[in-house]
Each structure stands twice: as C-alpha cells, then as structure tokens.
C-alpha cells in the first residue's frame, strides 16, 4: 500500500480568521455561520469554550453567556485562502498532492531519501503549515483512509502508523471517526457498535448485507484497509488572498492596513513553495458592486513585504479607486527569485527589491512611461525610442585585466562626440534661405543668424505605411556660438530638432 500523509487543520474556519488577524490569538473567539445574531456558532476557540461558548449556539446566545466573546462571520474568501495555503504547504515537499476539503493528502512514499524517517516528513509538513499561519496535524499511514483517521483522531500532532499496525491503530477509535452517514451511524448505534474494533469483529458479509456499500467501505476501514489512490493536482502559479470587509473604507491608510495582511500572507504562501512574487493583480470590490482591477508589475521578483506593499500603495495613490471599498483580493503571480551571480571585480549594483520600490516611487513621482530603460526603436526615424522596464543592468561588464582600462574604454576616451539634446517635440521655426541654404532662423524662443550650415542630410522611410517620412537635416552654427540641428519635413515645414552639446 502507498504511504500517504494527511495534513489537516482542525477548526479551519477558526484557523482562517486567526491567520488573517493574528491579534485575535488567546482571545475568546467564535465563528458564526453569518453576521446575523441568529446565526449558529460553527467554531470556537479554547478560550471561548472555557468561558462557556458552545457550537450550535446562536451568536446572541453565545454573546449573552460570554460578553467579551469576539464573533466573526464565516468568510468564504478567507476559508478558500486558508485551504489554498494548506495546499501550498503541502506542495513545498515536492510530492504528489490531493486537496480534499479541510485536509490535503500527500504521497510520501518517495520522500524517504530526503528525510530520515516519516516523523521527520510529518515535522516538515507541520512546520510548513505553521509558516503559512495554520496550526496543522499530520497522520501518516498506508492508504488515504487510515491516514485521515490518524490526522483527525490521533492524540499527537504527528501520528505515524507503522506498516502492518493499521488495524491495531484503528480498533480503539470510536466508530463515528469513520464519518458514517447519519443513517448508517444510527444503525451502528442500534447494533451496539461503538468502536472500530467492534465493527471489524463483525462478519463482513453480514455488514454488507445490512449496511450496503457504505457499510462494506466502513468495515474495510475499521480493519485498517483503504486502497484509494491519490488523484494528484498540478501546482498552480497564481496565489490568491482576499478579504471581505465589514464596512466600506475610503481611506488610504485603512486600505494599506488591509493590504499589509494580504501581502504578508501571500508572500508566506509563495515562500512555502520556494517561489517569489513576480507581480500582482489587485481587485478592489467597490460599494456600488463594481470592481477596480489593476495590474502591478515588479522590476524583480520579491519575497519582501515592505517593497510590495509600498508599490501597491503607490499604485492606489496614483489612481485612487472611484468609490469606497468593501473588499480586497490580491492575486500574486509566482516567479522564481532572480539569483544574481556576483562578480568579484564588478560593482554590485542596486538590490532588486530596493530597485523595484525605487522605480515604483519614481513612476509615482514622474508619471507612467517616464522611468525605465531607453532603447532605440526599430525604425530609421530619427530620435525614436522605446521605454522598457529597467532591470538593474544585466549587461556583461568589460573586464579590466591588468589594472588598466579596458580597450573599449580607451577608445572612447580619445574621441568624444557632441551629443544632440533633442527638443521634444521639435520646435517649429521660420528659416531664411540663401539659395537652398539656411541663413537665419526665428520662432519659438529662438532667433539666430547662421554662420555655417552643413547639409542637407536626407533621410526617408516607412513610405510603405501611412506614417512615411522624408526629412532634410542641416547642422547649423549660429553666430551666438550654438550648434543646432535644423530639419525640413516633406511638407516644407522647418523645425529645430535640438542642439548639439
């Protein structure tokens, strides 16, 4: 039989809230089915239980008995995120994984070479679950059914059932641990069957005859046999965390507080799978029922909450949502951390996460498209460029072998070219010609007699598109000393494109 581990969280609704609000730990906390006072309590903490709160009470009854009780409604988004987090903890071991409600089943048969024994595997699973904020129990046994029983009913946090010891482990457990249907449970109680051992002692044919297919399945499990196979789930690379708010917020500080929790949990889950965040989608639920969706890219994948939170805050600051917010959902795009091979002789460069934050701050300051890496556009049109994301500089450095300068550095040191400072957009001017040569220009704050005019340097291109261009450029030396680049387009209009400096 394959060895299976079952990673389970007892009272997942409670654990989901404690994960979202760690400050509620050690306070009497109960989770009700809804926010109504008549809603039933579905989970309560040990502290709440000690004060007298019980499952099945209404929220009003529980509050009457325990005035200091904190009651939270069942939040499907939080519950879903907690289940997904448990799955991430399981994926961290790199084995086949099958989610099943509030538990995850993991095929651990192949992990023997990585860990000294199965208890070590269990410890690692518990540690991973704790890292994503969930208190989990682990049961390891042959087959899914016994592993489930070990996780849910075993007295210890890590319960390992030795091969061949399944029947002995299951025998003392109450028959309700097998999770029979109400009808079968009542029948078993009528028969006087209280423990799994008592069920296993019955003749199999008689059990199947009276309790049908379910009875046969429970009987096999009571004897420590379960031959279901793992149905593995492929890992996902979109990690989602969300929170529905009790009341609408319109304040950036309050939203930042909400986002801080989401970011922290998101990064914990990514870290559990040895991944980092390469970008996020922020979905803000608005009071009027609409959604404000925005994509936030990162210059480099990160696991640090502060830069990611800063970038999100800047993104919201730059384009505030159109109305109050009633919920937030954050979808993180998983990416591998960039591992930079540092050079012993080359400078280190900016740290990727700090660079990402700085670029985001600069974009918020100067506007989208004003910050990045300039690159010539794929055209012969003069001065065209494209703005690309700045990645921190990955170009190979020239090695300086003997303490002197690299050859390319020396070449440039001997010949410096004038550079063109481009006016964006080019400034329209009127030009006085002498024959075909410009002699004077005026307009848009410029006025000069031209001592020298060299040109025309003719360029044309893209005639096969509607944006075709033709241009005659002149390098002109004004009598004041400045050197301009003057250009005449196909329509005969003159422009100063910039000056050399």
């Amino acid at each position, binding site marked *: 039989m394959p060895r299976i581990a079952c990673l389970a969280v007892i009272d997942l609704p409670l654990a989901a809230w404690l994960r979202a609000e760690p400050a509620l730990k050690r306070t009497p906390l109960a989770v009700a089915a809804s926010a109504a006072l008549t809603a039933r309590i579905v989970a309560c903490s040990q502290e709440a239980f000690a004060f007298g709160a019980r499952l099945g009470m209404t929220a009003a009854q529980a509050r009457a008995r325990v005035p200091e009780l904190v009651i939270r409604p069942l939040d499907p988004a939080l519950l879903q995120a907690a289940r997904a987090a448990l799955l991430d903890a399981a994926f961290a071991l790199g084995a086949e994984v099958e989610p099943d409600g509030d538990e995850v089943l993991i095929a651990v048969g192949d992990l023997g070479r990585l860990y000294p024994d199965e208890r070590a595997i269990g410890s690692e699973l518990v540690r991973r679950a704790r890292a994503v904020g969930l208190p989990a129990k682990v049961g390891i046994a042959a087959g899914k059914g016994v592993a489930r029983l070990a996780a849910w009913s075993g007295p210890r946090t890590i319960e390992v059932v030795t091969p061949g010891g399944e029947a002995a482990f299951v025998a003392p457990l109450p028959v309700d641990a097998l999770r029979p249907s109400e009808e079968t449970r009542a029948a078993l109680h009528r028969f006087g069957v209280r423990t799994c051992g008592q069920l296993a002692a019955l003749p199999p044919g008689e059990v199947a005859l009276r309790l049908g297919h379910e009875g046969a399945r429970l009987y096999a499990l009571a004897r420590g046999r379960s031959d279901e196979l793992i149905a593995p789930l492929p890992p996902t690379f979109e990690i989602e965390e969300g929170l529905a708010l009790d009341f609408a917020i319109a304040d950036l500080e309050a939203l930042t507080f909400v986002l801080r929790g989401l970011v922290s949990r998101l990064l914990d889950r990514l870290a559990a799978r040895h991944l980092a965040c390469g970008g996020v989608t922020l979905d803000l639920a608005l009071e009027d029922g609409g959604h404000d969706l925005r994509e936030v890219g990162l210059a480099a994948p990160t696991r640090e909450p502060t830069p990611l939170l800063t970038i999100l805050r800047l993104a919201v600051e730059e384009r505030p949502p159109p109305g109050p917010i009633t919920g937030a959902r954050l979808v993180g795009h998983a990416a591998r951390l960039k591992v930079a091979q540092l050079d012993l002789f080359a400078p280190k460069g900016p740290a990727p996460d700090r660079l990402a934050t700085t670029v985001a701050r600069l974009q918020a300051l100067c506007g989208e498209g004003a910050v990045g890496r300039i690159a010539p556009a794929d055209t012969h049109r003069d001065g065209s460029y494209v703005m690309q994301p700045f990645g921190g500089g990955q170009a190979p450095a020239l090695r300086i072998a003997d303490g002197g300068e690299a050859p390319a550095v020396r070449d440039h040191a001997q010949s410096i070219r004038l550079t063109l400072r481009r006016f964006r957009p080019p400034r329209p001017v009127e030009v006085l010609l002498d024959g075909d040569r410009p002699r004077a220009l005026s307009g848009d704050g410029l006025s000069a007699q031209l001592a020298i005019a060299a040109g025309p340097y003719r360029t044309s291109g893209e005639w096969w598109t509607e944006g075709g261009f033709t241009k005659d450029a002149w*390098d002109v030396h004004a009598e004041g000393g400045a050197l301009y680049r003057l250009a005449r387009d196909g329509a005969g209009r003159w422009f100063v494109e910039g000056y050399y400096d």
Partner: protein
Amino acid sequence: MAAVADRLARLAELKRALPHKAAPAARPDELLPTGSEALDRLLAGGLLRGRLTELVGWRSAGRTALGLSALGAATRRGETVALVDVDGTLDPESALQAGLLLERLLWVRAGEGARGLRAAELILGAGGFGLVALDVGERRARVPDVSWLRLARAAERSEAALLVIAPWPQAGSFAAATVEASRPRPRLSPPLSSPVNNEHVSPRILRAVSSCVTLVRSRRGAPEPPGELTLRLR
C-alpha cells in the same frame, strides 16, 4: 574706507604667502574616470564617489557630451548608472555613440526641476548606483540651498558620484568641484580644390567643435590649467 582697503590688501597678501593646503589625494577606488582625458586631468583622476560634481556650460560647449561620456565610462566598468533628465532631451543614438550600455542606465524624465531633485535623491537612497547624473535643463528656477545640501548628503551616504549638468553653476559650495565648458568654436573640414584650376569644388563641412574646459572651483587643491576639448560632430 581706506582702513578697509588696507585690511583687504593685507588679507590678499596673507593668502598669497600661505602655502596652499591641498586635500589628500583620493584613492583610485574613490574615483570614477569620466572617459575624457581633459576632464579626468582637471578632476585629478575622475569624479569623486560620494561627492557632488558640477559640469556647466552654455549651449554647444560640450557639457552634455562630457556628462554622457562619464555615464558611458561608468557603465563600461560595470556600474549601474542613472540619468535624471529634467527636460527629457536624451537622444538614444547619441547615448549609444557615447559608449553607454543602455541596459545599465536608468533614465528618468522628470519634467520639472523640483521633481528632478527629488528623483535624484530617491535614486541615491536606493543605493547600488555608481553614478547618478542630474541634468537640470535650461529652465531658470530657483533651487533652495537645502535641496543641494540634501542631495550632497544623499550622495555621501550612498557613496555614488553625483554629477549635476547645468548651464550655469547652481550647487555653490555643496559641489566638490565645478567644471565649466565654454567658448565653443566650430571646426570645418579642409577645402577640396580642383587639381585643374585650383578652385574650391566642395563646401567646407562642419566637422567638430573645440571648446575650453576649466576647473572653476575645487576642494581638492590647486586648480589645473584649462584644457582644450575637441568634440566630433558626425
């Protein structure tokens, strides 16, 4: 009045009499060569890391060419650099011709002077940049001294060389050195004459510009004599 003039004259005499106290020479790893021999000679080896250096000069004297040359030289040594361009005048072809590795250049089009100063401060605060150039453009805007002080302090903390490119000196005493490029003079190609009748057969082409680079002020000792800079056009 006579007493004041007398005291001023004595003060000038005293200054001449005192030996010039030069700052200790910078270690090679504290210097960032600029790729221009003339500029490196004036700056005693290059831009000083952690200090603010000003490069000033009016149109076509070559301040931008020298600035891009320094950025290019830094990128070719493996440094990550940034250019905060207030007017957004950077020409990508010129940058490539200056030997800049564009992958290592963070370009910021700031749009206005105050924003440019803030952007430069943010970049210096990030750390890891070898050279941050702030091209303040040509708009006349009063920059409070405290802004230059903050920038100089940020450069000191990040150990990055900060280069301010401007038409005229702005940072005052917060600059460790100020270099001025001035007096641009055009250089034409030699005339081509016909071998038959010795007449000129082609117009003279604008080939280059010569300008003068001068160390206007420096905290690092006696100023070097001005240098001659030749900047090719095409």
